[in-house]
């Protein structure tokens, strides 16, 4: 009976993953996944709920409540942090399970290595995720690559140590608790160091990668506790995390190893501009827009930081009222998480059909009257097409420079994540509106009333 429930639950997990693949079925996907999870959890009890004491149930209840509260409170712009944090939790849980199993002396030999693997991956995921979250929040900016190099160099002897230790002091074959704890420490430090060297804007890739690791940790925990559903769900998450990571990397034209090695954007390149940009005012922008027939808005990281979604919606409404065609051009790695811009725009009810992917919109730019680049930078940098020495060379970009007029809304001339100058800013058909994305847009909307 239990086995049939588990079979059913596995099938549901797979269909959930499949349904996540289409916008029209994605919300059903979540329901499927919840159902699958519910069945799996239910069957784990094996119809014997009395084996568990009240502390157990209270823990589940309280943490479930906590989960709901956190998830309801968080703002959509903080999504990446939240996913990162939860990831760490999942990894930590798997690591803890593996530790408990390892400290039992009854574990069969073949499971030892799987368990140590699961423990290490889980703990690595945990500490790595915490660092990733801190980086995303901007709480950790320094470059830790020297520490990382030293740590990596010392890792092999550090890993050998417990073997020597155990063979000296341990009588039965196995692993001492002390060694286990030492391994945990190493994994935790490993997670911290590895993530610390990676630049803040690469955190989305790191989070997808850690997500994959947390799946792998769960999968290997499944091998220890003999749970097929754990193995299947873990494998699904592990594999989907990997492919997501690879997709993201290829959208930035970098390999996963380059990303994980870290240090991106730290090499200094020539950031001088040959001439001054033309700057403009909200009033002028409003006038310009009112003469346009087609407008494309390119949201970027700055839009998310400034929380300018509502203002974007307001401007869109204003423009549509004047029968101006408004489209959104979404670069695959714009913002802080893949697909993040789509979510932020959907949050303020911007029509799904108005959001265009890179391939779709790039064909159209030459016939667009005005493009508004809103806190985006690297994803519209034409050097990716022209300058072979540029670190972003080869990354597919939005060809906004082909449009008739480009207005860039950002606070200064400072570079984006890749740390390089953007010649788009000094193009003849570009104008800079120096402002916070939200305030800038609000002023433009206000100016419309005066036009």
């Amino acid at each position, binding site marked *: 009976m239990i086995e049939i429930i588990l079979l059913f639950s596995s099938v549901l997990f797979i269909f959930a993953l499949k349904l996540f*693949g289409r916008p029209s079925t994605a919300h059903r996907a*979540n329901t499927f996944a919840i159902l699958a999870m519910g069945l799996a959890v239910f069957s784990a009890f094996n119809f014997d709920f009395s084996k568990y004491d009240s502390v157990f149930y209270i823990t589940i209840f*309280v943490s479930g409540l906590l989960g709901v509260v956190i998830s309801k409170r968080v703002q959509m712009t903080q999504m990446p942090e939240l996913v990162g944090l939860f990831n760490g939790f999942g990894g*930590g849980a798997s690591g803890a399970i593996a530790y408990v199993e390892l400290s039992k002396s009854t574990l069969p030999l073949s499971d030892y290595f799987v368990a140590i693997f699961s423990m290490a991956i889980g703990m690595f995921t945990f500490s790595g995720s915490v660092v990733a979250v801190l980086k995303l929040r901007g709480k950790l900016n320094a470059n830790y690559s020297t520490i990382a190099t030293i740590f990596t160099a010392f890792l092999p002897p550090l890993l050998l140590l417990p073997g020597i230790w155990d063979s000296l002091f341990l009588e039965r074959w196995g692993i001492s608790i002390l060694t286990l704890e030492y391994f945990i420490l190493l994994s935790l430090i490993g997670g911290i160091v590895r993530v610390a060297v990676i630049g803040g804007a690469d955190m989305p890739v790191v989070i997808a990668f850690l997500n994959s690791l947390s799946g792998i940790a769960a999968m290997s925990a499944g091998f220890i506790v003999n749970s097929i559903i754990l193995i299947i769900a873990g494998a699904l998450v592990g594999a989907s995390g990997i492919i997501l990571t690879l997709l993201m990397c290829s959208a930035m034209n970098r390999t996963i190893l380059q990303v994980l090695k870290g240090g991106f954007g730290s090499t200094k390149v020539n950031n001088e501009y040959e001439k001054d940009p033309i700057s403009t005012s909200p009033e002028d922008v409003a006038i310009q827009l009112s003469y346009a027939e087609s407008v494309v808005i390119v949201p970027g990281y700055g839009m998310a930081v400034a929380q300018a979604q509502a203002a974007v919606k307001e401007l869109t409404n204003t423009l549509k009222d004047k029968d101006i065609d408004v489209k959104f051009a979404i670069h695959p790695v714009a913002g802080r998480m893949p697909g993040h811009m789509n979510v932020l725009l959907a949050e303020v009810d911007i029509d799904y059909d108005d959001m265009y992917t890179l391939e779709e919109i790039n064909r159209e730019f030459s016939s667009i009257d005005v493009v508004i680049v809103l806190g985006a930078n690297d994803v519209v940098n034409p050097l990716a097409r022209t300058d072979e020495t540029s670190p972003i060379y080869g990354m597919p970009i939005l060809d906004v420079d082909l449009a008739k007029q480009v207005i860039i809304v950002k606070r200064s001339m400072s570079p984006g994540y890749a740390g390089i100058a953007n010649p788009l800013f000094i193009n003849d058909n570009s104008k800079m509106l120096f402002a916070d994305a939200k305030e800038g847009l609000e002023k433009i909307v206000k100016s419309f009333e005066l036009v």
Partner: protein
Amino acid sequence: METIFLLTLLITFLASFIGYELISKIPQTLHTPLMSGSNAISGITLIAAILIYPEVGESQFLKIIVLTALALATINIVGGFSVTGRILEMFKKND
């Protein structure tokens, strides 16, 4: 026992393959909900916590560790699904 182990390995491979295949055709728009959804699924390790809790025996220390795992996994699952639901809600009202 050996057969079961090999069948399990096979299942692991098949499931990984499916995970890989399914995600490689997902459109970019859905990357955020997908990440968040699969993140919630990775809390499946809750099952392991449930399975081993009755077996930890006397040790208060191990009990606390299992409870910690239980708590972390539960937050991961419940929070993860709830936030995925919120994200998808935003897409849904667009239809």
